[in-house]
């Protein structure tokens, strides 16, 4: 297996594992853990075995074309830095999988957990291994989304939902910023390829768009790495299950931001702007994070703020622009991941065993769980920077960098003091964690009786703590070579000489460490009693909650502002909406008219065909009549509209477009019926009273609407006139006419275009039609008619009253008598229309007709049944499953398309032939006709679904009316 394949597998394996994990039964905890552990172990092995290839110094690359015209490629690239990170992600991922087996309770949805967990690992590896910046952003967004799912894993808890939403909002905004930043970089460099970008550092730094680019990229990095002022989502994300916190919020996802900063550091870093942006954010996060961490009551909250602080330290190191700072940053990323992941797992054990994470309630657990306590103590010591542990090494490097002068400014002068104070705080909160949880009095009222966890739950912590110790004592032998290739791959020729020794002699950094350790310990002694009883949150800053500000902003934007805009700019009146729509389209159409010198073109009088002109006179009369009658005589208007529609159909026939005519006719029929059904819901209007009362303003408004309508109509006329009086340009229609029979095997060119030449378009269109039908269905499901139309129509009430009044009738008899003969005839028409639809469908290949026309005709048959006998009667007797029709249609169409793959042709290739049947004769048999069957089925399903929605409105109204009358009766 060559290294490119291994690279591809490394990305693909977690995603494949995620798909697999999702399929397990909910209670298969052990099987699920085995599968996930094997997948993650496989990823560890794959990463590890890539080391020899990476160690040569040239990155391993894999390039698959994606959208080459846009400069996008699926390119993976693994250098030393990426290797180190992928080892970190896969190893910690593996350990967390084992840990999760014991942490998650049997009631939790285990498949969902592992599926998202593995998918997250894949996305994270994607960020690390992307060789193309756009691809990196894609994986970046993917981590945001999956992290949302994982934080909100216990979605039944409000804080999990809120935390998930907050982290998604903030990291999502950052992701958008990153995308924009990456686009700017791509614009500057001319390529999104990471190698090309890394080679053009000088070009980017001297470009006028440099500052916007780094602002946007840093927005992405800061939000992801929870840097000040975007830090507040991380403590809220602690509502996630602890394995998720251990993996995402210590080791991996929050590291993505600093990973990106380190990755692009050689290109973007080293300038004054970079120093200020990252230096300020880093210093603020370092100091505030450490300060806030001291005053947390929740163990996980303490660890979250500590993470913010440590990530701030890394950001600060990267701001300095010195290669040694970058070395320290990379080293600290590793060290932080090891001790923080183990601490989170320890916190999870404490929570799991004692039932609480509140440090004011806990205490004296050392006697009950000595192993866990010892492990947590070592990890905390690493966090505090105690010598002989890995945290000490990178912290010393940090101190050494902090006292150097890099860019002369206040921030640079303050850096050593910030560093010492923050380290002292780190010592304080580390001691607090250990002291509050493991020492002191053993409280009596713990929710559970704590004891040591199972061995395998402790094992991951043991391994990580062992790593902390080994790296801390013999750094050069253990991680020296790995760190070196990572550093070289980032810094290249600028790699400075650095030393990983534990003892550098009596230096200033050592002195700073000692001050920090002693100062931090003293601070804890002073604060001890306050911390044992204080409120949640640090003093003075308690009221200033980022979360609260964030929620305020969200409420303003998504509620108040939105309502304000809706109140001032929105309207519920159809007239205003239509007026706006027409006016906007008028302007939009008028601009090109004006710009391109509209001319009327040639028109030769004397070609008028008298019967055709008369036909159009009738059509125009109908249309004008419909407009005139629309307000007070809606039924008349509808009938006149039908007349105009028929004239249009005849026009199509006249101009030799029978296909259009057939379709138009059927569409006219169905539209007329739909409007007819809708008429019942419109409020009744009386001509006389309304005209008599109309004030001037109303008349003015009507006049304006008339003007708008007239101008729009005139514009449409001019537009059609201009188009029709010009010779038609040479289009591809000639090609279709020539090729339809020889290549598509059909004489009906329109149909052949629809199902063969443009089959893929049609496939898309029917999909959209299905979606539209489902949307209409969904919208109407909750729809209730307006209160003034909820009552039965007047006619029904009068009929009912007559029926009640007369002794020779029973209620409802009038309607059923009236409709008896018509409804019987309409029911008889059902089979006739089916025959008609079949006829339209079968002839479609060579003559006007086809799946669409047949589908519309077929749905007319259903409409008629609903009209004839009423919804209840029809549905008692006829099982109509329109959604199945839609699904079946899509399935048939898709399968026919895929079928051509079997024979080695592209999607939707049609095969046609004529079959000679006895009696019936020669009939066309193209695969396109099967595709057309799919179209037919979908059109039937979609149309019928929408009709049923309308039909059910009437039942709904009846039911509502029944309820109101029964309540009235009860009251009476």
């Amino acid at each position: 297996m060559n290294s490119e394949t291994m690279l591809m597998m490394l990305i693909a394996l977690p995603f494949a594992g995620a798909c697999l994990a999702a399929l397990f039964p909910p209670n298969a905890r052990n099987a699920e853990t085995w599968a996930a552990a094997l997948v993650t172990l496989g990823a560890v092995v794959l990463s590890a075995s890539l080391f020899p290839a990476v160690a040569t110094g040239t990155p391993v690359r894999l390039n698959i074309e994606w959208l080459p015209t846009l400069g996008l490629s699926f390119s993976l690239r693994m250098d030393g830095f990426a290797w180190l990170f992928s080892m970190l992600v896969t190893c910690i991922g593996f350990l967390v999988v084992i840990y999760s087996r014991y942490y998650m309770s049997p009631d939790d949805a285990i498949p969902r957990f592992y599926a998202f967990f593995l998918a997250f690992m894949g996305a994270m590896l994607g960020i690390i291994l992307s060789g193309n910046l756009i691809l990196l952003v894609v994986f970046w967004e993917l981590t945001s989304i999956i992290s949302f799912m994982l934080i909100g894993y216990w979605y039944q808890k409000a804080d999990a939902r809120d935390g998930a939403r907050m982290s998604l909002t903030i990291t999502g905004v950052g992701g958008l910023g990153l995308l924009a930043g990456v686009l700017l970089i791509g614009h500057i460099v001319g390529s999104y390829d990471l190698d090309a970008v890394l080679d053009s550092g000088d070009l980017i730094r001297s470009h006028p768009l440099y500052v916007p680019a780094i602002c946007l990229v840093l927005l992405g990095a800061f939000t992801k790495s929870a840097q000040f002022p975007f830090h507040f989502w991380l403590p809220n994300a602690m509502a996630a299950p602890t394995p998720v916190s251990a993996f995402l919020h210590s080791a991996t996802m929050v590291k993505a931001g600093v990973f990106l900063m380190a990755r692009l550091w050689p290109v973007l870093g080293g300038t004054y702007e970079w120093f200020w942006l990252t230096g300020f954010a880093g210093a603020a996060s370092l100091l505030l994070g450490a300060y806030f961490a001291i005053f947390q009551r929740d163990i996980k909250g303490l660890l979250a703020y500590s993470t913010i602080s440590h990530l701030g330290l890394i950001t600060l190191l990267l701001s300095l622009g010195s290669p040694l700072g970058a070395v320290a940053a990379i080293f600290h990323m590793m060290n932080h991941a090891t001790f923080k992941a183990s601490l989170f797992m320890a916190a999870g054990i404490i929570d799991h065993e004692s039932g609480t994470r509140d440090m004011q309630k806990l205490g004296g657990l050392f006697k009950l769980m000595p192993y866990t306590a010892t492990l947590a103590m070592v990890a905390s010591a690493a966090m505090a920077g105690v010598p002989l542990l890995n945290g000490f090494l990178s912290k010393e490097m940090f101190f050494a960098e902090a006292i150097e002068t890099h860019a002369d400014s206040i921030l640079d002068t303050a850096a050593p003091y910030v560093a010492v104070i923050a380290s002292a705080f780190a010592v304080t909160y580390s001691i607090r964690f250990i002291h509050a949880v493991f020492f002191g009095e053993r409280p009596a009222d713990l929710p559970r009786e704590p004891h040591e966890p199972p061995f395998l739950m402790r094992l991951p912590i043991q391994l990580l703590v062992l790593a902390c110790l080994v790296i801390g004592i013999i750094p050069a032998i253990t991680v020296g070579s790995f760190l070196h290739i990572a550093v070289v791959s980032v810094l290249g020729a600028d790699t400075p000489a650095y030393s990983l020794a534990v003892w550098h002699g009596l230096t200033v950094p050592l002195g700073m460490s000692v001050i920090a350790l002693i100062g931090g310990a003293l601070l804890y002694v002073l604060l001890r009693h306050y911390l044992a009883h204080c409120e949640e949150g640090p003093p003075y800053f308690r009221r200033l909650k980022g979360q609260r500000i964030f929620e305020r902003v969200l409420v303003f934007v998504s509620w108040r502002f939105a309502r304000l805009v809706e109140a001032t700019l929105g309207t519920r009146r159809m007239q205003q909406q239509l007026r706006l729509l027409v006016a906007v389209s008028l302007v939009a159409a008028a601009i090109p008219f004006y710009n391109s010198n509209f001319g009327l073109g040639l028109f030769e009088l004397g070609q008028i065909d008298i019967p055709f002109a008369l036909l159009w006179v009738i059509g125009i009369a109908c249309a004008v009549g419909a407009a005139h009658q629309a307000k007070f005589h809606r039924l008349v208007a509808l009938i006149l509209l039908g007349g105009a529609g028929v004239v249009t159909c005849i026009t199509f026939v006249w101009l030799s477009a029978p296909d259009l005519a057939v379709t138009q006719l059927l569409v006219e029929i169905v539209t007329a019926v739909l409007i007819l059904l809708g008429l019942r819901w419109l409020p009744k209007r009386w001509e006389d009273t309304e005209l008599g009362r109309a004030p001037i303003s109303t008349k003015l408004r009507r006049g304006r609407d008339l003007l708008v309508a007239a101008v729009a109509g005139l514009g449409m006329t001019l537009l059609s006139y201009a188009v029709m009086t010009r010779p038609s340009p040479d289009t591809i229609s000639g090609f279709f006419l020539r090729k339809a029979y020889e290549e598509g095997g059909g004489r009906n060119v329109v149909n052949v275009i629809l199902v063969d030449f443009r089959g893929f378009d049609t496939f898309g269109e029917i999909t959209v039609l299905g979606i539209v039908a489902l949307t209409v269905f969904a919208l109407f499901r909750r729809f209730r008619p307006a209160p003034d139309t909820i009552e039965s129509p007047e006619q029904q009430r009068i009929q009912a009253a007559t029926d009640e009044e007369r002794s020779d009738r029973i209620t409802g008899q009038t309607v059923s008598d009236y409709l008896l003969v018509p409804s019987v005839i309409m029911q008889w028409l059902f089979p006739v229309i089916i025959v008609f639809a079949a006829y339209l469908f079968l002839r479609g290949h060579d003559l006007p007709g086809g799946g669409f026309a047949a589908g519309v005709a077929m749905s007319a048959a259903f409409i008629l049944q609903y009209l004839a006998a009423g919804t209840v009667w029809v549905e008692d007797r006829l099982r109509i499953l329109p959604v199945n029709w839609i699904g079946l249609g899509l399935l048939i169409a898709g399968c026919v398309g895929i079928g051509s793959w079997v024979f080695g042709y592209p999607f939707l290739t049609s095969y046609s032939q004529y079959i000679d049947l006895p009696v019936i004769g020669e009939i066309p048999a193209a695969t396109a006709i099967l595709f057309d069957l799919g179209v037919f089925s979908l059109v039937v399903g979609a149309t019928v679904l929408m009709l049923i929605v309308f039909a059910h409105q009437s039942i709904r109204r009846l039911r509502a009316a029944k309820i109101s009358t029964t309540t009235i009766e009860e009251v009476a």
Partner: protein
Amino acid sequence: MSIAAADFPLWAAILVALFLLIGSSLTFLGALGLLRFKSFYERIHLPTLGTSWGTGGILVASMIFFSVTQSRPVVHEILIAIFVTVTTPVSLMLLARAALYRDRTEGNDTVPPMAPDTPKPEPIVHD
């Protein structure tokens, strides 16, 4: 599928012309009547001329014409006949009912009032 006038047999031409004439003149008469009759209830009767034998004649002509020119029986005009002859009575019936209902509600005296209330007939019991 054009066909020269000379190839078309004379007997068929006469038949086609005859049926076409019958159909179109009946339809025309119906339309004329629709224009001339005054009340709605009178007018209701006229379109039936066009939709019964008017359509029928034209369709028979069409069937003969296409059967002769294509030398095979072309009969799908029957569907049109069914649709037209079956649906027109339905719409006319509904229209008449609606008009009657409306006239009665508005109290117009052009229509006879409802039949007097008669007690319910005793249910017939079969032994």
